């Protein structure tokens, strides 16, 4: 048996035990599983996975709890069309095990004021949460996706977003998996003309985590990608983002901030593609990292592929410690050293939290962060 076959063999058994689905869906599953067996799990020899070793996932035999099939037929025109599995083993695996699809459809022109909450609480073993969000032209909505669980398990999530022209979509992902969980979460967003889209990824939990956000922009689309990742102990969190300026006059802003402590490691890889026709593109990418220990490691890499000539693209990455002058200033006012450290760490994260438009989410994250840093300080 080849190495790939060895890894995928265990999955074959689960795959064949699945309840059959409607023909269109079963075809999709079959194609995806076929592709998965060809690809196998990525290794650190793959450039895309250079800093993230998924061997702990590949060598584990997860228990797969079969769930009731719940995929509305209306999802057919969209499902799997925006999250390609040709080159992505985890997307292929998710698609092969499609069961329970969370399908949200906001019709043309409809404005949904209340945030739509999607909470994925992981079962033991493995789960392949699938979310499909279709927003019609000129419709508005806010989605909050939360991932949590207890014990050891593997969450392999895929989210597809289709945002119509002139729509306004704010998406938040809050990853609060258990400390021993594996989490691979991939999001693909296809954004229409003049759509206004934001994706915020808050990554707090998990042992081995990969967050991917890919957005394809049309003419005049405005996209904002924000992220905050906190790692401690031996956690590893990898953030891969890709912004594809396919057409002219698009704007993208990206700000990812990381706080690293203990022996943890993190990755930021920000790809920006500006296609030949995408003139007048305006793109800004920033990655800032606060490293609190000597043993934490961050790998940050911008990846700009620019084929148009009349564009503005800037990128920058920083890696730093807490500012000694700021610490002294706080201490000189009577604030203890550890409290001063936690206050400054909190302030670093605050920048991202302040940009969250959902008040209740902002409040709850503020509390979580405050406790987290306070606990570290004492």
């Amino acid at each position, binding site marked *: 048996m080849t190495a790939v076959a060895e890894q995928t063999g265990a999955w074959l058994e689960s795959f064949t035990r699945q309840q059959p689905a409607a023909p269109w869906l079963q075809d999709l599953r079959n194609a995806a599983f076929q592709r998965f067996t060809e690809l196998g799990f990525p290794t650190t020899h793959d450039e895309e996975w250079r800093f993230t070793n998924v061997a702990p996932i590949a060598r584990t035999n997860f228990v797969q709890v079969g769930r009731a099939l719940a995929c509305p037929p209306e999802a057919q025109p969209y499902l799997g069309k925006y999250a390609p599995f040709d080159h992505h083993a985890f997307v292929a695996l998710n698609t092969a095990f499609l069961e329970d699809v969370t399908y949200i459809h906001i019709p043309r022109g409809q404005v949904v004021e209340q945030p739509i909450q999607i909470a994925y609480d992981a079962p033991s073993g493995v789960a392949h949460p699938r979310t499909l969000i279709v927003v019609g032209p000129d419709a508005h909505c806010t989605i909050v996706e939360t991932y949590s669980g207890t014990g050891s398990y593997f969450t392999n999530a895929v989210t597809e977003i289709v945002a119509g022209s002139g729509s306004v979509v704010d998406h938040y992902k809050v990853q609060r998996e258990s400390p021993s969980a594996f989490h691979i979460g991939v999001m693909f967003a296809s954004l229409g003309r003049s759509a206004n889209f934001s994706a915020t990824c808050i990554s707090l939990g998990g042992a081995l985590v990969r967050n991917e956000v890919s957005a394809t922009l049309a003419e005049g689309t405005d996209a904002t990608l924000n992220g905050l990742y906190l790692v401690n102990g031996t956690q590893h969190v990898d953030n891969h983002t890709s912004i594809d300026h396919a057409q002219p006059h698009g704007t993208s802003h990206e700000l990812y901030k990381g706080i690293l402590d203990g022996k943890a490691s993190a990755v930021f890889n920000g790809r920006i593609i500006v296609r030949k026709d995408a003139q007048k593109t305006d793109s800004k990418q920033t990655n800032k990292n606060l490293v609190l220990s000597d043993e934490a490691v961050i790998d940050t890499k911008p990846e700009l592929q620019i084929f148009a000539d009349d564009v503005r693209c800037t990128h920058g990455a920083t890696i730093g410690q807490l500012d000694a002058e700021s610490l002294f200033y706080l201490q000189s006012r009577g604030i203890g050293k550890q409290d*001063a450290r936690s206050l400054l760490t909190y302030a670093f994260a605050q920048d991202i939290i302040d940009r969250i438009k959902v008040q209740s989410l902002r409040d709850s994250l503020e509390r979580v962060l405050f406790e987290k840093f306070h606990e570290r300080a004492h």
Partner: protein
Amino acid sequence: MALLEIKNLHATVGDREILKGIDLTVNCGEVHAIMGPNGSGKSTLAQVLAGRELYVVTGGEVIYDGKDLLAMPPEDRAREGIFLAFQYPVEIPGVSNMYFLKAALNAIRKHRGLDELDAMDFLALVKDRMKLLEMDQVLLNRAVNTGFSGGEKKRNEIFQMAVLEPKLAILDETDSGLDIDALRAVAEGVNALRSPDRAMIVVTHYQRLLNYIVPDYVHVLAEGRIVKSGGKELALELEESGYAGLGIEDVEEAVGKV
């Protein structure tokens, strides 16, 4: 008993000796001005007293309120009543002025065995002290010193002092970067805080500030030592003859920046 007693204090930064034997005694109720050209060690002295780790004390001792000051970390010095108004107040994005000041005040109160102030009492105190400095209340809700003008930063320092009510206030070049109106407002704030229970050390390059904050004593610092001490008239003397009149080279004047 003196509030502050500095004896033969030596301090270095890197391998450069900045303070080369400072002796100074300050009693409650007194205002001491420390003047001197740039590079004389004025700011170093201020920072050493506040506990900045960048400077290494290599000799001498400092007794504050009967205690060994140099053995205390910066936060304990503040809790014991020392306050340094920074020459360059630090911008701290993400931390609101209000939160920062409340945390500071309550840390100090706790150390002194007092109850922590609740939000209402704290707000009342803060509003009262803001009037003293003619400060815009909007600044309270902004991040610490972030986006403040030079004048607003200096006012914010004295405002913090008014809230924290120190026993010994050290003002490091509080006049630098202030226009005349801001200078007057800041000086009035400082004067309002003069009290028989409180001492102040006013560090400045120019005599100008001392027109507004009239000191009891003036000390001239040069090359890490106090070379002359006197009453308030010494400042006027310096104004007329310059540091050169005392045979001291003023680096700033020498390069013609004045």
